[in-house]
């Protein structure tokens, strides 16, 4: 029984033996992307979950060339590595960064913007688990509305995080980047296809992949992939691409699954009341109205 996605990937494992939590969505995103890119990928990981779990001398869990960058410096280090290798005469490699939501949308956004502005030939992958998980679940710029984190506690007065996620996909696109995409590890073949496509495009590529964190989201370790699918199915996330100045929607759920069911199965949203959920649904509907108006559907 052939699995066309498995068939296209390298049989090598490039991220193995790491100490990520059981069921880690970020680890799956990194593993899948590296299997698509192959052994000449040079990965850059900032301070954060994936570097913390993968690089503790002498337990070094990447079989490809990999390096930790400063927290703010994923994109700038990618730029340097790409330029340095090119200067030394190499052309057959992919400089790829894996930064979390905080490392991308907060502390790393300046360097990312600079790299896109220069159109450096790199792939930047944001594995979005929607909070600073490595330091113990603090709010980031990509924490969704209503989520309980350790710095946005849910109580009688404030129901968790008050602000919606930054829209990093459209922020990247606004730079007129050659390629940007959203993805979810719940739709792994779509993510892998996008990584493969990015590797064929010159210039800066940005891929934003939802990668749930069982620990931070308050779900069981075996639910990671399921919930990453559900967030797309209920319309709170979407699979899309930006290329040649155009937005394309890759997947349109026939009917959205229940937002409430999606939220209520996660510990971080347990406290939300009907009014909060209504707010989430209204925001989703506004977003989809925008998508229907501005994205073509493939």
């Amino acid at each position, binding site marked *: *029984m052939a*699995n066309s*996605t*498995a068939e296209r*990937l390298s*049989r*090598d*494992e*490039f*991220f*193995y*033996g*790491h*100490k*990520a*939590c*059981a*069921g*880690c*969505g970020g*680890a*799956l995103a990194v*593993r*899948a992307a590296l299997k698509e890119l192959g*052994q000449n990928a040079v990965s850059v990981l900032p301070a954060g979950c994936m570097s913390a779990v993968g690089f503790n*001398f*002498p*337990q*070094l*869990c*990447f*079989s*490809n*060339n*990999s390096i930790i960058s400063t927290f703010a410096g994923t994109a700038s280090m990618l730029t340097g590595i790409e330029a340095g290798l090119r200067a030394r005469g190499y052309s057959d490699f992919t400089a790829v960064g894996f930064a979390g939501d905080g490392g991308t949308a907060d502390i790393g956004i300046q360097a990312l913007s600079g790299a896109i502005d220069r159109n450096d030939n790199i792939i930047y992958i944001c594995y979005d688990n929607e909070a600073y998980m490595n330091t113990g679940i603090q709010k980031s710029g990509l924490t969704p509305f209503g989520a309980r984190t350790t710095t946005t506690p849910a109580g009688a007065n404030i129901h968790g995080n008050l602000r919606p996620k930054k829209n990093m996909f459209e922020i990247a696109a606004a730079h007129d980047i050659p390629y940007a995409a959203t993805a979810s590890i719940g739709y*792994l073949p779509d993510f892998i296809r996008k990584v493969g496509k990015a590797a064929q495009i010159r210039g800066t590529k940005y891929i934003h992949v939802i990668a749930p964190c*069982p620990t931070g989201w308050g779900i*069981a*370790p*075996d*639910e*990671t*992939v*399921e919930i990453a699918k559900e967030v797309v199915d209920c319309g709170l996330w979407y699979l899309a691409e930006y290329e040649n100045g155009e937005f394309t929607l890759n997947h349109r759920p026939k009917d959205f699954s229940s937002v409430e069911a999606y939220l209520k199965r996660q510990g971080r949203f347990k406290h939300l009341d009907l009014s909060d959920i209504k707010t989430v649904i209204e925001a989703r509907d506004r977003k989809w109205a925008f998508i229907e108006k501005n994205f073509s559907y493939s």
Partner: protein
Amino acid sequence: MKPYIREKKTFTAAEIPEATAFEAGYLVSVNSGWRSIRPVIDTGRCVGCEQCYLYCPDGVISVQNGKAVIDYDFCKGCGICAKIFRLGAIRTEAEHK
């Protein structure tokens, strides 16, 4: 190719590299102790679809001779494989410690 367990696990001061640069994929410890549940492949039911291989966050499942095989040294027992494959070829049981 994948990271693998090495014989040499500790380093004297002289053996520690000058710079923060070392052989890629150098492992000195396993993760098997993390498991509270253990996924078990029913080879009779396994159809070699590779969904479990694809979705394993730890990459511990390979397909050999058309059947899934788990590297229990590094499986953390998250159970994603059992959920992904809906025909019941992977069941989970309590880990015996």
